[in-house]
Protein backbone atom coordinates (compact mmCIF):
# COMPACT_ATOMS: atom_id res chain seq x y z
CA UNK A 1 0.00 0.00 0.00
CA UNK A 2 3.05 2.26 0.15
CA UNK A 3 2.82 3.46 -3.40
CA UNK A 4 -0.54 5.15 -3.10
CA UNK A 5 -0.16 8.87 -3.51
CA UNK A 6 -1.95 11.00 -0.98
CA UNK A 7 -2.66 14.65 -1.39
CA UNK A 8 -3.43 17.06 1.37
CA UNK A 9 -6.26 19.24 0.23
CA UNK A 10 -6.38 22.18 2.54
CA UNK A 11 -8.09 24.48 0.12
CA UNK A 12 -9.98 23.67 -3.03
CA UNK A 13 -8.78 26.17 -5.55
CA UNK A 14 -10.58 27.06 -8.72
CA UNK A 15 -7.61 27.83 -10.98
CA UNK A 16 -8.03 24.80 -13.21
CA UNK A 17 -11.80 25.24 -13.31
CA UNK A 18 -11.37 28.89 -14.24
CA UNK A 19 -8.83 28.06 -16.95
CA UNK A 20 -11.12 25.41 -18.37
CA UNK A 21 -14.10 27.72 -18.25
CA UNK A 22 -12.24 30.49 -20.03
CA UNK A 23 -11.11 28.05 -22.69
CA UNK A 24 -14.74 27.06 -23.24
CA UNK A 25 -14.93 23.80 -21.28
CA UNK A 26 -17.42 24.99 -18.70
CA UNK A 27 -19.14 21.62 -18.52
CA UNK A 28 -16.13 19.98 -16.87
CA UNK A 29 -17.59 21.07 -13.55
CA UNK A 30 -20.75 19.08 -14.30
CA UNK A 31 -18.95 15.78 -13.74
CA UNK A 32 -20.88 13.68 -11.23
CA UNK A 33 -18.19 10.99 -10.93
CA UNK A 34 -20.44 8.29 -12.35
CA UNK A 35 -17.46 6.43 -13.83
CA UNK A 36 -18.93 5.72 -17.29
CA UNK A 37 -15.76 7.24 -18.76
CA UNK A 38 -13.38 4.95 -16.93
CA UNK A 39 -15.71 2.05 -17.67
CA UNK A 40 -15.17 2.31 -21.40
CA UNK A 41 -11.59 3.62 -21.40
CA UNK A 42 -9.25 1.27 -23.29
CA UNK A 43 -6.23 2.84 -21.63
CA UNK A 44 -7.52 2.60 -18.07
CA UNK A 45 -7.93 -1.14 -18.28
CA UNK A 46 -4.20 -1.58 -18.82
CA UNK A 47 -2.52 1.51 -17.34
CA UNK A 48 -2.79 3.56 -14.17
CA UNK A 49 -4.73 6.25 -16.03
CA UNK A 50 -8.18 6.59 -14.54
CA UNK A 51 -10.34 9.09 -16.37
CA UNK A 52 -12.80 9.54 -13.55
CA UNK A 53 -10.03 10.28 -11.04
CA UNK A 54 -8.53 12.81 -13.41
CA UNK A 55 -11.82 14.71 -13.64
CA UNK A 56 -12.12 14.71 -9.86
CA UNK A 57 -8.61 16.11 -9.51
CA UNK A 58 -9.50 18.79 -12.02
CA UNK A 59 -12.61 19.70 -10.01
CA UNK A 60 -10.51 19.88 -6.84
CA UNK A 61 -7.96 22.09 -8.55
CA UNK A 62 -4.92 19.85 -8.04
CA UNK A 63 -3.23 21.61 -10.95
CA UNK A 64 0.42 20.69 -10.49
CA UNK A 65 -0.35 17.06 -9.76
CA UNK A 66 -2.55 16.73 -12.83
CA UNK A 67 -0.20 18.50 -15.23
CA UNK A 68 3.05 16.91 -14.11
CA UNK A 69 1.68 13.36 -14.18
CA UNK A 70 2.87 11.08 -16.96
CA UNK A 71 -0.53 9.36 -16.88
CA UNK A 72 -2.11 12.32 -18.63
CA UNK A 73 -0.37 11.07 -21.77
CA UNK A 74 -1.71 7.52 -21.59
CA UNK A 75 -5.00 8.53 -23.21
CA UNK A 76 -5.17 7.46 -26.86
CA UNK A 77 -7.94 10.02 -27.64
CA UNK A 78 -10.39 7.35 -28.73
CA UNK A 79 -13.27 9.67 -27.66
CA UNK A 80 -15.34 6.92 -26.09
CA UNK A 81 -15.63 8.82 -22.79
CA UNK A 82 -16.79 11.96 -24.55
CA UNK A 83 -19.44 10.02 -26.46
CA UNK A 84 -20.81 8.21 -23.42
CA UNK A 85 -20.63 10.85 -20.70
CA UNK A 86 -24.21 11.27 -19.44
CA UNK A 87 -23.50 14.87 -18.41
CA UNK A 88 -22.09 15.90 -21.75
CA UNK A 89 -18.64 16.64 -20.39
CA UNK A 90 -16.23 16.78 -23.38
CA UNK A 91 -13.75 14.59 -21.50
CA UNK A 92 -11.27 13.95 -24.30
CA UNK A 93 -11.15 17.63 -25.23
CA UNK A 94 -10.49 18.48 -21.58
CA UNK A 95 -7.61 16.00 -21.52
CA UNK A 96 -6.17 17.51 -24.70
CA UNK A 97 -6.43 20.98 -23.23
CA UNK A 98 -4.75 19.82 -20.01
CA UNK A 99 -1.94 18.46 -22.17
CA UNK A 100 -1.57 21.93 -23.65
CA UNK A 101 -1.24 23.34 -20.15
CA UNK A 102 1.27 20.66 -19.23
CA UNK A 103 3.41 21.44 -22.27
CA UNK A 104 3.28 25.11 -21.35
CA UNK A 105 4.80 24.17 -18.03
CA UNK A 106 7.49 22.15 -19.72
CA UNK A 107 6.02 18.69 -19.17
CA UNK A 108 6.47 16.87 -22.45
CA UNK A 109 7.57 13.30 -23.24
CA UNK A 110 10.95 12.84 -24.91
CA UNK A 111 9.75 11.16 -28.11
CA UNK A 112 7.04 13.82 -28.49
CA UNK A 113 9.66 16.50 -28.22
CA UNK A 114 11.57 14.84 -31.03
CA UNK A 115 8.39 14.80 -33.11
CA UNK A 116 8.07 18.56 -32.65
CA UNK A 117 11.55 19.05 -33.98
CA UNK A 118 10.76 16.84 -36.95
CA UNK A 119 7.59 18.81 -37.61
CA UNK A 120 9.46 22.08 -37.46
CA UNK A 121 12.20 20.91 -39.75
CA UNK A 122 10.18 19.04 -42.38
CA UNK A 123 6.52 19.93 -41.88
CA UNK A 124 5.78 16.27 -41.11
CA UNK A 125 5.64 14.04 -38.06
CA UNK A 126 6.71 11.07 -40.17
CA UNK A 127 8.94 12.31 -43.00
CA UNK A 128 10.72 10.55 -45.82
CA UNK A 129 14.00 9.99 -44.07
CA UNK A 130 15.36 7.00 -45.98
CA UNK A 131 15.77 6.30 -49.64
CA UNK A 132 13.76 3.07 -49.40
CA UNK A 133 10.53 5.02 -48.86
CA UNK A 134 11.03 6.97 -52.08
CA UNK A 135 11.84 3.75 -53.90
CA UNK A 136 8.70 2.20 -52.45
CA UNK A 137 6.63 5.07 -53.84
CA UNK A 138 8.16 4.61 -57.26
CA UNK A 139 7.42 0.89 -57.12
CA UNK A 140 3.73 1.81 -56.94
CA UNK A 141 4.04 4.20 -59.84
CA UNK A 142 3.99 7.33 -57.71
CA UNK A 143 6.55 10.12 -57.85
CA UNK A 144 9.45 9.43 -55.48
CA UNK A 145 8.90 12.69 -53.63
CA UNK A 146 5.25 13.37 -52.80
CA UNK A 147 3.78 16.83 -53.59
CA UNK A 148 3.91 17.90 -49.95
CA UNK A 149 6.27 20.17 -48.06
CA UNK A 150 8.93 17.67 -49.13
CA UNK A 151 8.66 18.79 -52.72
CA UNK A 152 7.86 22.46 -52.22
CA UNK A 153 10.41 24.22 -50.02
CA UNK A 154 8.28 27.40 -50.02
CA UNK A 155 5.51 25.39 -48.42
CA UNK A 156 7.94 24.14 -45.82
CA UNK A 157 8.93 27.73 -45.12
CA UNK A 158 5.27 28.74 -44.83
CA UNK A 159 4.75 26.09 -42.17
CA UNK A 160 7.85 27.17 -40.32
CA UNK A 161 6.88 30.81 -40.29
CA UNK A 162 3.43 29.84 -39.00
CA UNK A 163 5.02 27.77 -36.26
CA UNK A 164 7.10 30.79 -35.37
CA UNK A 165 4.04 33.02 -35.53
CA UNK A 166 2.12 30.89 -33.03
CA UNK A 167 5.33 30.58 -31.02
CA UNK A 168 5.19 26.81 -31.26
CA UNK A 169 8.95 26.76 -31.58
CA UNK A 170 9.36 28.59 -28.28
CA UNK A 171 6.70 26.51 -26.57
CA UNK A 172 8.23 23.19 -27.52
CA UNK A 173 11.82 24.44 -27.52
CA UNK A 174 12.62 22.95 -30.89
CA UNK A 175 16.00 24.56 -30.90
CA UNK A 176 17.06 22.54 -27.88
CA UNK A 177 19.15 19.66 -29.09
CA UNK A 178 20.44 18.17 -32.30
CA UNK A 179 17.80 16.57 -34.40
CA UNK A 180 18.51 12.85 -34.44
CA UNK A 181 16.40 10.89 -36.85
CA UNK A 182 13.84 9.04 -34.75
CA UNK A 183 13.03 5.84 -36.61
CA UNK A 184 10.68 4.37 -34.04
CA UNK A 185 10.17 1.51 -36.44
CA UNK A 186 8.10 3.71 -38.74
Amino acid at each position, binding site marked *: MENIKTSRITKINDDLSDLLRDAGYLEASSCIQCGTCSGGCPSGRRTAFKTRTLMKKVQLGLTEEVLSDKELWFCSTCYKCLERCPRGVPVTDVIIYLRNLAVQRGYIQGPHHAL*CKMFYKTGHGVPINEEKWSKLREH*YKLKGIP*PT*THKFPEANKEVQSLLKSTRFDELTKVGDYDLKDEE*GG*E
Partner: protein
Amino acid sequence: MIPNRYPFIESATNNVFEKLNIELIEMEGASCCPAPGVFRGFDIDTWLVIGARNITIAEELGLDIALMCNGCYGSLLEVNHTLKHDKEKRRIVNEHLAKIGREFKGSINVRHVVDILYHDVGVDKIQQRSKYGRKTPLNLKLGLHYGCHLTKPSEIRPWNQESEKPTFFDELVEVSGCKSIDYKDKFLCCGAGGGVRGAFKEVSLDYTREKLENMKAAGIDVIITACPFCHLQLDLGQVEVNKIFKDKISGPFNIPVMYFTQLLGLAFGMEPEELGLIRSPDLTGIPPFIPLKPVLKKIGVKV
Protein backbone atom coordinates in the same frame (compact mmCIF):
# COMPACT_ATOMS: atom_id res chain seq x y z
CA MET B 1 1.89 8.68 -43.08
CA ILE B 2 0.38 7.41 -46.32
CA PRO B 3 2.72 9.10 -48.81
CA ASN B 4 5.81 8.48 -46.75
CA ARG B 5 5.27 4.94 -45.44
CA TYR B 6 2.23 3.32 -47.09
CA PRO B 7 2.20 4.58 -50.66
CA PHE B 8 0.21 1.57 -51.84
CA ILE B 9 -2.75 2.89 -49.85
CA GLU B 10 -2.51 6.00 -51.96
CA SER B 11 -2.20 4.13 -55.23
CA ALA B 12 -4.89 1.56 -54.41
CA THR B 13 -7.34 4.31 -53.53
CA ASN B 14 -6.46 6.20 -56.69
CA ASN B 15 -7.12 3.08 -58.76
CA VAL B 16 -10.45 2.36 -57.10
CA PHE B 17 -11.64 5.93 -57.48
CA GLU B 18 -10.56 5.90 -61.11
CA LYS B 19 -12.70 2.85 -61.74
CA LEU B 20 -15.62 4.72 -60.15
CA ASN B 21 -15.01 7.79 -62.31
CA ILE B 22 -14.08 10.09 -59.47
CA GLU B 23 -11.08 12.31 -59.99
CA LEU B 24 -8.74 12.81 -57.08
CA ILE B 25 -6.55 15.88 -57.47
CA GLU B 26 -3.36 16.17 -55.47
CA MET B 27 -2.98 19.08 -53.07
CA GLU B 28 0.38 20.76 -53.46
CA GLY B 29 2.42 21.88 -50.53
CA ALA B 30 0.40 20.20 -47.80
CA SER B 31 2.07 19.44 -44.51
CA CYS B 32 1.22 17.09 -41.68
CA CYS B 33 -2.50 17.69 -41.01
CA PRO B 34 -1.25 18.20 -38.01
CA ALA B 35 -1.64 14.84 -36.29
CA PRO B 36 -4.46 15.21 -33.75
CA GLY B 37 -2.99 12.90 -31.18
CA VAL B 38 0.32 14.64 -30.78
CA PHE B 39 0.33 18.19 -32.07
CA ARG B 40 -3.16 19.07 -30.91
CA GLY B 41 -2.10 17.93 -27.46
CA PHE B 42 0.88 20.29 -27.54
CA ASP B 43 -0.84 23.45 -28.70
CA ILE B 44 -4.41 23.70 -29.92
CA ASP B 45 -3.91 27.11 -31.53
CA THR B 46 -0.99 25.87 -33.62
CA TRP B 47 -3.05 22.86 -34.63
CA LEU B 48 -5.83 25.17 -35.80
CA VAL B 49 -3.44 27.35 -37.78
CA ILE B 50 -1.57 24.57 -39.55
CA GLY B 51 -4.82 22.71 -40.23
CA ALA B 52 -6.33 25.89 -41.62
CA ARG B 53 -3.33 26.32 -43.91
CA ASN B 54 -3.90 22.89 -45.39
CA ILE B 55 -7.57 23.69 -45.87
CA THR B 56 -6.72 26.92 -47.69
CA ILE B 57 -4.81 24.89 -50.27
CA ALA B 58 -8.05 23.08 -51.11
CA GLU B 59 -10.05 26.30 -50.92
CA GLU B 60 -7.79 27.77 -53.60
CA LEU B 61 -8.58 24.77 -55.78
CA GLY B 62 -12.26 25.17 -54.98
CA LEU B 63 -12.54 21.49 -54.12
CA ASP B 64 -13.53 19.43 -51.09
CA ILE B 65 -10.76 17.51 -49.36
CA ALA B 66 -10.81 13.70 -49.59
CA LEU B 67 -8.85 11.97 -46.85
CA MET B 68 -7.70 8.38 -46.50
CA CYS B 69 -6.59 8.68 -42.90
CA ASN B 70 -8.77 8.82 -39.77
CA GLY B 71 -6.26 11.06 -38.02
CA CYS B 72 -6.22 13.61 -40.83
CA TYR B 73 -9.99 13.31 -40.99
CA GLY B 74 -10.35 13.96 -37.28
CA SER B 75 -8.04 16.95 -37.49
CA LEU B 76 -9.21 18.68 -40.64
CA LEU B 77 -12.91 18.00 -40.13
CA GLU B 78 -12.78 19.49 -36.65
CA VAL B 79 -10.55 22.41 -37.66
CA ASN B 80 -12.90 23.18 -40.54
CA HIS B 81 -15.96 22.94 -38.32
CA THR B 82 -14.46 25.01 -35.49
CA LEU B 83 -13.29 27.78 -37.78
CA LYS B 84 -16.55 27.85 -39.70
CA HIS B 85 -18.54 28.40 -36.49
CA ASP B 86 -16.27 30.24 -34.05
CA LYS B 87 -15.77 33.80 -35.27
CA GLU B 88 -13.16 34.70 -32.67
CA LYS B 89 -10.93 31.68 -33.34
CA ARG B 90 -11.27 32.29 -37.06
CA ARG B 91 -10.13 35.87 -36.65
CA ILE B 92 -7.06 34.82 -34.69
CA VAL B 93 -6.17 32.06 -37.16
CA ASN B 94 -6.53 34.40 -40.14
CA GLU B 95 -4.23 36.88 -38.42
CA HIS B 96 -1.50 34.23 -38.46
CA LEU B 97 -2.32 33.07 -41.99
CA ALA B 98 -2.21 36.63 -43.29
CA LYS B 99 1.51 36.66 -42.57
CA ILE B 100 1.97 34.10 -45.35
CA GLY B 101 -0.66 35.56 -47.59
CA ARG B 102 -3.41 33.00 -46.90
CA GLU B 103 -6.94 33.27 -45.61
CA PHE B 104 -9.34 30.65 -44.29
CA LYS B 105 -12.68 31.22 -45.94
CA GLY B 106 -14.69 28.21 -44.84
CA SER B 107 -15.69 27.41 -48.40
CA ILE B 108 -15.00 23.70 -48.66
CA ASN B 109 -15.90 20.48 -46.86
CA VAL B 110 -13.65 17.79 -45.47
CA ARG B 111 -14.57 14.19 -46.35
CA HIS B 112 -13.19 10.75 -45.62
CA VAL B 113 -12.99 8.40 -48.60
CA VAL B 114 -15.32 5.98 -46.78
CA ASP B 115 -17.84 8.83 -46.52
CA ILE B 116 -17.47 9.64 -50.22
CA LEU B 117 -17.83 6.04 -51.32
CA TYR B 118 -20.76 5.32 -48.99
CA HIS B 119 -22.79 8.51 -49.41
CA ASP B 120 -21.83 9.91 -52.81
CA VAL B 121 -21.29 6.74 -54.80
CA GLY B 122 -23.39 4.30 -52.83
CA VAL B 123 -22.91 0.67 -51.98
CA ASP B 124 -25.10 -0.50 -54.86
CA LYS B 125 -23.03 1.21 -57.53
CA ILE B 126 -19.82 -0.15 -56.07
CA GLN B 127 -21.37 -3.61 -55.89
CA GLN B 128 -22.05 -3.41 -59.61
CA ARG B 129 -18.37 -2.86 -60.31
CA SER B 130 -17.34 -5.72 -58.09
CA LYS B 131 -16.66 -9.00 -59.81
CA TYR B 132 -17.58 -10.76 -56.61
CA GLY B 133 -20.70 -10.58 -54.58
CA ARG B 134 -23.09 -12.57 -52.48
CA LYS B 135 -23.42 -15.25 -55.15
CA THR B 136 -19.71 -15.47 -55.88
CA PRO B 137 -18.02 -14.52 -52.67
CA LEU B 138 -14.38 -14.02 -52.02
CA ASN B 139 -14.25 -16.41 -49.13
CA LEU B 140 -12.53 -14.28 -46.57
CA LYS B 141 -13.58 -13.68 -43.01
CA LEU B 142 -12.98 -10.00 -42.42
CA GLY B 143 -12.27 -8.34 -39.11
CA LEU B 144 -13.18 -4.70 -39.61
CA HIS B 145 -11.35 -2.06 -37.65
CA TYR B 146 -13.23 1.21 -38.03
CA GLY B 147 -10.75 3.24 -36.04
CA CYS B 148 -11.75 5.83 -33.47
CA HIS B 149 -11.61 9.09 -35.39
CA LEU B 150 -13.75 7.87 -38.24
CA THR B 151 -16.87 7.87 -36.08
CA LYS B 152 -16.08 9.99 -33.00
CA PRO B 153 -16.94 12.62 -31.85
CA SER B 154 -20.14 11.65 -33.63
CA GLU B 155 -21.83 15.03 -33.50
CA ILE B 156 -20.08 16.50 -36.53
CA ARG B 157 -19.65 13.31 -38.46
CA PRO B 158 -21.99 12.15 -41.23
CA TRP B 159 -22.99 8.85 -39.62
CA ASN B 160 -26.23 9.88 -37.87
CA GLN B 161 -24.61 10.13 -34.44
CA GLU B 162 -23.92 6.39 -34.51
CA SER B 163 -20.66 5.61 -32.79
CA GLU B 164 -21.48 2.55 -30.68
CA LYS B 165 -22.52 0.06 -33.36
CA PRO B 166 -22.14 1.53 -36.84
CA THR B 167 -22.50 -0.72 -39.87
CA PHE B 168 -21.67 1.54 -42.83
CA PHE B 169 -18.09 0.32 -43.20
CA ASP B 170 -19.22 -3.30 -43.08
CA GLU B 171 -21.80 -2.61 -45.79
CA LEU B 172 -19.19 -0.92 -47.95
CA VAL B 173 -16.62 -3.65 -47.62
CA GLU B 174 -19.04 -6.54 -48.11
CA VAL B 175 -19.43 -5.61 -51.78
CA SER B 176 -16.37 -7.81 -52.16
CA GLY B 177 -18.51 -10.78 -51.20
CA CYS B 178 -16.52 -11.34 -48.03
CA LYS B 179 -18.24 -11.54 -44.67
CA SER B 180 -17.51 -9.03 -41.95
CA ILE B 181 -17.25 -11.03 -38.74
CA ASP B 182 -18.34 -9.68 -35.41
CA TYR B 183 -15.64 -10.03 -32.76
CA LYS B 184 -15.37 -9.14 -29.11
CA ASP B 185 -14.90 -5.40 -28.51
CA LYS B 186 -14.93 -4.68 -32.22
CA PHE B 187 -14.67 -0.93 -31.72
CA LEU B 188 -11.69 -1.00 -29.38
CA CYS B 189 -9.02 1.57 -30.16
CA CYS B 190 -5.86 0.22 -31.84
CA GLY B 191 -3.72 2.12 -29.35
CA ALA B 192 -1.59 4.14 -31.71
CA GLY B 193 -3.33 7.49 -31.33
CA GLY B 194 -3.07 10.26 -28.80
CA GLY B 195 0.68 10.10 -28.93
CA VAL B 196 0.64 6.77 -27.13
CA ARG B 197 2.55 4.83 -29.80
CA GLY B 198 5.09 7.62 -29.96
CA ALA B 199 5.84 7.87 -26.25
CA PHE B 200 4.74 4.54 -24.77
CA LYS B 201 4.98 1.96 -27.49
CA GLU B 202 4.44 -1.02 -25.20
CA VAL B 203 1.21 0.46 -23.85
CA SER B 204 -0.08 0.95 -27.39
CA LEU B 205 0.93 -2.59 -28.30
CA ASP B 206 -1.06 -3.95 -25.40
CA TYR B 207 -4.21 -2.49 -26.95
CA THR B 208 -3.21 -4.21 -30.20
CA ARG B 209 -2.56 -7.49 -28.44
CA GLU B 210 -6.07 -7.42 -26.95
CA LYS B 211 -7.60 -6.66 -30.33
CA LEU B 212 -5.63 -9.39 -32.07
CA GLU B 213 -6.58 -11.95 -29.45
CA ASN B 214 -10.26 -11.13 -29.95
CA MET B 215 -9.91 -11.34 -33.71
CA LYS B 216 -8.07 -14.63 -33.52
CA ALA B 217 -10.78 -16.06 -31.29
CA ALA B 218 -13.39 -15.12 -33.88
CA GLY B 219 -11.46 -16.87 -36.65
CA ILE B 220 -10.73 -13.80 -38.69
CA ASP B 221 -8.63 -14.13 -41.85
CA VAL B 222 -7.90 -10.50 -42.71
CA ILE B 223 -8.08 -7.21 -40.84
CA ILE B 224 -9.56 -4.29 -42.79
CA THR B 225 -8.60 -0.72 -41.90
CA ALA B 226 -9.55 2.79 -42.98
CA CYS B 227 -6.56 4.56 -41.45
CA PRO B 228 -2.82 4.15 -42.10
CA PHE B 229 -1.91 4.65 -38.46
CA CYS B 230 -4.30 1.88 -37.37
CA HIS B 231 -2.94 -0.08 -40.30
CA LEU B 232 0.65 0.39 -39.12
CA GLN B 233 -0.28 -0.44 -35.55
CA LEU B 234 -2.03 -3.66 -36.56
CA ASP B 235 0.52 -4.64 -39.23
CA LEU B 236 3.98 -3.72 -37.98
CA GLY B 237 2.52 -3.67 -34.50
CA GLN B 238 1.57 -7.33 -34.89
CA VAL B 239 5.21 -8.24 -35.47
CA GLU B 240 6.15 -6.18 -32.43
CA VAL B 241 3.43 -7.79 -30.30
CA ASN B 242 4.66 -11.24 -31.32
CA LYS B 243 8.10 -10.28 -30.08
CA ILE B 244 7.38 -8.26 -26.95
CA PHE B 245 4.47 -10.30 -25.60
CA LYS B 246 5.88 -13.64 -26.64
CA ASP B 247 5.36 -15.14 -23.21
CA LYS B 248 1.90 -13.70 -22.70
CA ILE B 249 0.22 -14.89 -25.87
CA SER B 250 -0.62 -18.45 -26.86
CA GLY B 251 1.25 -18.23 -30.14
CA PRO B 252 2.38 -15.63 -32.66
CA PHE B 253 -0.41 -13.80 -34.49
CA ASN B 254 -0.61 -14.14 -38.21
CA ILE B 255 -3.58 -12.08 -39.37
CA PRO B 256 -2.63 -9.90 -42.34
CA VAL B 257 -3.95 -6.37 -42.71
CA MET B 258 -5.53 -4.72 -45.74
CA TYR B 259 -6.55 -1.15 -46.27
CA PHE B 260 -10.13 -1.30 -47.50
CA THR B 261 -9.44 0.08 -50.97
CA GLN B 262 -6.97 -2.74 -51.49
CA LEU B 263 -9.83 -5.15 -50.86
CA LEU B 264 -12.14 -3.17 -53.13
CA GLY B 265 -9.44 -3.20 -55.82
CA LEU B 266 -9.20 -6.97 -55.47
CA ALA B 267 -12.99 -7.19 -55.81
CA PHE B 268 -12.81 -5.04 -58.95
CA GLY B 269 -10.41 -7.59 -60.41
CA MET B 270 -7.12 -5.75 -60.06
CA GLU B 271 -3.83 -7.55 -59.51
CA PRO B 272 -2.64 -8.04 -55.94
CA GLU B 273 0.85 -6.80 -56.86
CA GLU B 274 -0.37 -3.42 -58.06
CA LEU B 275 -2.54 -3.07 -54.96
CA GLY B 276 0.43 -3.45 -52.64
CA LEU B 277 -0.68 -6.79 -51.27
CA ILE B 278 2.62 -8.46 -52.13
CA ARG B 279 5.82 -7.10 -50.71
CA SER B 280 8.23 -5.70 -53.28
CA PRO B 281 11.20 -8.08 -53.41
CA ASP B 282 13.86 -5.41 -53.87
CA LEU B 283 13.36 -3.54 -50.61
CA THR B 284 13.56 -4.57 -46.96
CA GLY B 285 11.86 -3.27 -43.87
CA ILE B 286 8.76 -2.25 -45.77
CA PRO B 287 5.11 -3.17 -45.42
CA PRO B 288 3.13 -5.39 -45.55
CA PHE B 289 4.87 -6.79 -42.49
CA ILE B 290 2.44 -9.65 -41.99
CA PRO B 291 2.43 -11.40 -45.38
CA LEU B 292 -0.82 -11.53 -47.31
CA LYS B 293 0.28 -14.17 -49.79
CA PRO B 294 -0.91 -17.22 -47.82
CA VAL B 295 -4.40 -15.76 -47.30
CA LEU B 296 -4.69 -14.76 -50.96
CA LYS B 297 -3.56 -18.19 -52.07
CA LYS B 298 -6.21 -19.70 -49.80
CA ILE B 299 -9.01 -17.94 -51.64
CA GLY B 300 -7.59 -18.78 -55.01
CA VAL B 301 -6.29 -15.37 -56.03
CA LYS B 302 -3.47 -15.79 -58.48
CA VAL B 303 -0.26 -14.37 -57.11
